[in-house]
């Protein structure tokens, strides 16, 4: 630990058998400060940059970034085009900014949808138990076992003509709720045996009451972390579909930009920035989300230790 917080313990003191008095204890953190550790702050900063940047900057864009042949193709980075232009004559930077915005939007909506469904199912399965739980868990396990991508490929093939970007979101929700439901249910299971639930039960509270007032606050910690992970999953899944060309690739997203770059031979034409920029953006965005997720986790865990 830090040497500055120790008072000087001379060997003479030790030999004489005298214990050295402790230094002044740290001031205890007040209010919400316990929440913020290094990881969390770093992650939030990254996220803030992405969210603010991608939602505010588009207002300043005069040209639709998805419109092809707006500029010369494959231009190098310059003051006019900070990241150059794509093989389709679009400004790379603006396309990327819109891509981040669309991916984030989709991610958040899908995240909300999945969280709502999986929380309801997980909570109820965990608390009600019995045959209901067994049936639900069987369905959940089946959904987990069925690999998502083949299903998405089929659905992507079928709806390619469909002009709605949100359809993709709906599909992801329908097939992506299972994992989170499982996590929430096992957490509820461990809760069921805890003392404070039994206390509430013995004091006569009804099932719904217990669900809302006792279990939910405990669960909410997991919900925050789960939500962020779901957003990650959603952005990921859409991008996966887009990269292989089965989403609505005209819409700029983190996945579709990679799709275009790959299919227009970004590497052969030497326009590797077109490919590199979304990679860096995706990695940073995911890193930010991940840091926020584990940061929350660590903060909640240590608070639970204290509380």
């Amino acid at each position, binding site marked *: 630990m830090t040497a500055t917080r120790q008072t000087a313990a001379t060997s003479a003191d030790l030999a004489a058998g005298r214990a050295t008095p402790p230094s002044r204890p740290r001031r205890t953190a007040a209010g919400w400060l316990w929440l913020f550790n290094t990881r969390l702050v770093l992650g939030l900063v990254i996220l803030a940059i992405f969210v603010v940047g991608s939602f505010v900057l588009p207002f300043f864009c005069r040209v639709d970034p998805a419109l092809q042949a707006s500029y010369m193709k494959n231009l190098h980075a310059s003051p006019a085009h900070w990241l150059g232009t794509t093989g389709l004559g679009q400004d790379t930077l603006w396309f990327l900014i819109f891509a981040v915005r669309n991916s984030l939007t989709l991610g958040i909506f899908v995240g909300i949808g999945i969280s709502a469904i999986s929380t309801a199912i997980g909570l109820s399965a965990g608390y009600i138990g019995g045959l209901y739980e067994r049936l639900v868990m069987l369905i959940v396990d089946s959904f*987990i*076992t*069925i690999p998502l991508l083949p299903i998405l490929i089929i*659905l992507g093939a*079928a709806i390619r003509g469909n002009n709605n970007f949100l359809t993709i979101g709906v599909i992801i929700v329908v097939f992506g709720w299972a994992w989170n439901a499982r996590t929430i249910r096992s957490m509820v299971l461990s809760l069921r045996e805890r003392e404070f639930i039994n206390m509430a039960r013995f004091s006569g509270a009804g099932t719904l009451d217990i669900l809302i007032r006792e279990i939910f606050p405990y669960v909410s910690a997991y919900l925050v972390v789960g939500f962020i992970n779901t957003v990650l999953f959603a952005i990921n899944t859409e991008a*996966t579909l887009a990269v292989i060309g089965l989403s609505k690739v005209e819409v700029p997203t983190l996945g579709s930009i990679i799709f275009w770059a790959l299919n227009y031979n970004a590497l052969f034409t030497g326009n590797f920035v077109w490919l590199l920029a979304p990679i860096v953006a995706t990695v940073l965005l995911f890193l930010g989300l991940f840091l926020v997720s584990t940061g929350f986790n660590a903060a909640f865990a240590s608070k639970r230790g204290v509380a």
Partner: protein
Amino acid sequence: MGVIQYVAKRVGLYLAVLFIGVTITFFLPRLLPTNPIDAYIGQIQSRANGVLSADAIAQLRQNLEELYGLKGNLFSQYVGYLNRVIFHLDFGPSFTYYPTPVSGMILNALPWTLGLLLVSTVIAWVLGNLVGVVAGYFHTRRAATVLEVVGILLYPIPYYILAVSVILLLAYVIPIFPLSPTFPVGDLSLQMVGSIIYNSTLPALTLVLAGFGWNILSMKALAVATTEEPYVTFARLKGTSNWTRMVRYVFRNAMLPQVTALALSLGTVFNGALLTEILFSYPGVGLIMRTAASSGDYNVLYGAITLSILAVATAGLVIDLIYPLLDPRIRHR
């Protein structure tokens, strides 16, 4: 007695999950907004430039409906479907490569997929856990934190980013490997094996990197917790060497939850493998599915889904059955 119960339960669950999966794939085409038969007939017509007579089209439609099991009421369709799929593994002919049976196509591609998956998953799991256990056992040293940071950096990166980055780095910036792999056909020879390995390295590397980070992180956390257990402390006080303690005491115990975690992650790993195949044009099930998706070859798609479910569920079952071999507390009640 405990073992038999355990096995029976697992096999029962396996069959139930398979059944539900097959049922879902049965309903899938009926839930789609587009009718695959119409789509196919549309394609045939455009290819034949409208030369087909109305009678021929009607006959074709009828044949397809029979093939698809779309005749008769829902229940008889369902039973017929189950019969075909489960007992005969018959998914009908491919539309694009008519009349090649779908099962044949998939079974040709399956060994490639399985090979890639097995090799990379095993490497990622073994390597990741070994690194993790060392990092966890010596967690006070600085090198351990470095390893953990490596894990943190790798873990959130999605498969497609890893694949594209690997291409960028190792096929473009430092062109060791080919930008698009080509796989030789013909008889098995040493040269061919070498060529296969060379061309498979990039996709395999992608899959290994993807799984590696998570294994390091979770194993490190487990190892740190296990090292504090009383039996590890007691082993230290017996004078047991660091190596023995790390391997026989910490690793042998910490790897058990990791085996379970592997079983749970099979779906994700499989998805990642398919995606990687598509991006690298690797001749596995993934590529077949992608091309089938472009050409509207629905039979291939349904066949591939069913086999995917079968593959993932079976792999999970195998791992579940291996688990008692590793944990004597399950083996001997």
